[in-house]
């Protein structure tokens, strides 16, 4: 019985240096003894056309390319070809570039060394990657799906996975182990705060990865309650903004002398997307854990301390229980100041285009 012919591995090299591509094709064709099917492209347009013509096991990208550099193309491929194995091959070796590429989904970050040893090293890595046994299950893209639904699906199935989330400059990870959400991180935020901030995102991309243990478990409790709390926080934020739109209409009417009380208020405008302008997260001791967009961290810290003091004064007057937060509606947006035993949070947001204090 004849031996089964090994599957040819399909590779696409994208580099703006035509001479390099010619050399790569010759060298790797020889090294692979004809087991590689090598295509080349000098820019992202040619690469996309080639991918449309034939799917590839591995796409190898140069970092420095005109018009659309390798990193941008890597991000584009994540959207247009989710699950595509992409390797960065570059002469840049700094840690920041490496981390950025790997964070954006590159399977490997290889150093472009134009020596026989360098080519051998790259070949063996690419050959192993292209020959890796594909994971079972489907791979694809789900459009218009809530993160809550994805989490619910993972938790209900008692799965273990890492949900990577990308939305603009925001990115984060939610760790699910045996159907329980055990950790979340988003920028400098960790734990439930990070989970709720990720679940409050209005849109973006996600990627379900195989489970790897988080640096530490920061979340406990049943996932149903965590998702319910996230939904509650999201609803409260939306209601408050909608109330603000109505109040804004009313305030304008009441300030106009001709507008009598019998005149019906203008209907609230549809809720516009909420834009977060400032975030300040401090520990209970006042240490700044995360800051974004604050013109003066000291002033915002001072505001939080002032509100904590005023809340205590209110508590002394009325048995109201533990203070949780102050929500402030202005004509320009909304501010939330949350005071918890272990953290203080200041968030200022508003509808896009409105001036905020």
């Amino acid at each position, binding site marked *: 019985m004849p031996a089964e012919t090994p599957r040819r591995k399909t590779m696409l090299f994208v580099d703006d240096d035509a001479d390099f591509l010619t050399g790569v094709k010759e060298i790797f064709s020889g090294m692979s003894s004809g087991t590689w099917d090598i295509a080349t492209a000098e820019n992202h347009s040619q690469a996309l056309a080639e991918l449309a013509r034939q799917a590839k096991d591995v796409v190898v990208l140069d970092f420095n390319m005109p018009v659309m550099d390798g990193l941008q193309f890597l991000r584009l491929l994540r959207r247009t070809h989710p699950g595509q194995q992409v390797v960065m091959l570059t002469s840049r070796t700094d840690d920041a570039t490496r981390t950025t590429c790997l964070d954006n989904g590159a399977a490997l970050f290889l150093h472009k060394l134009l020596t026989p040893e360098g080519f051998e090293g790259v070949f063996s890595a690419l050959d192993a990657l292209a020959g890796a046994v594909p994971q079972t299950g489907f791979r694809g893209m789900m459009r218009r799906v809530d993160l809550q639904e994805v989490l619910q699906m993972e938790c209900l199935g008692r799965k273990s996975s890492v949900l990577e989330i990308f939305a603009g400059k925001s990115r984060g990870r939610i760790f699910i182990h045996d159907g329980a959400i055990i950790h979340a991180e988003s920028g400098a935020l960790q734990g439930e705060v990070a989970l709720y901030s990720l679940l409050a995102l209005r849109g973006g991309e996600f990627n379900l990865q195989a489970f790897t243990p988080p640096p530490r478990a920061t979340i406990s409790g049943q996932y149903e309650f965590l998702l319910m709390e996230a939904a509650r926080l999201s609803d409260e934020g939306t*209601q*408050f903004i909608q*109330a*603000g739109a*109505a*109040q*804004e209409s*009313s*305030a304008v*009417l*009441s*300030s106009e002398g001709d*507008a*009598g*009380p019998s*005149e019906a*208020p203008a209907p609230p405008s549809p809720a516009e997307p909420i834009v977060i302008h400032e975030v300040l997260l401090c520990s209970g001791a006042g240490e700044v854990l995360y800051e974004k967009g604050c013109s003066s961290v000291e*002033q*915002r810290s*001072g*505001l939080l301390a*002032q*509100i904590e003091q*005023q*809340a205590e*004064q*209110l*508590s002394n*007057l*009325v*048995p*109201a*229980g*533990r*203070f*949780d*937060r*102050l*929500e*402030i*509606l*202005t*004509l320009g947006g909304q*501010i939330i100041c949350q005071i918890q035993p272990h953290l203080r949070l200041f968030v200022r947001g508003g509808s896009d285009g409105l001036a905020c*204090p």
Partner: protein
Amino acid sequence: MNSSVEQFLAARLPFPGLVAWGARLPDRTAASQSYVDWLPVSRTEQVLARLILAADSLQYHQIEPVRLCWTFEHLRFRLGLRPDGVCLMLVEQNQRDYSPAAGDSAFDDFAQVMVP
């Protein structure tokens, strides 16, 4: 207290979950009422004064509020501020099924009550 404000308050309040209210006019005249034994009217007036003071103090942070909501474990203190200086405070129970709708509606309508 101004008669149109009194009429509005009598017509709209209380609603379920409301513990107390307080209102203040630009001439500093104030009115308040409590619907529970554990919060005397005198204390309600103190709370109103404290909330207005806290709202004023936000101006030092370049924040000009039109509505505030102080959420505690058991109560929510809400304050609506009109551009003409008229204020309305609502103290509501912070129950599990709490809905801000009734209070929101009261604030919206209060914003349009004519005060000469």
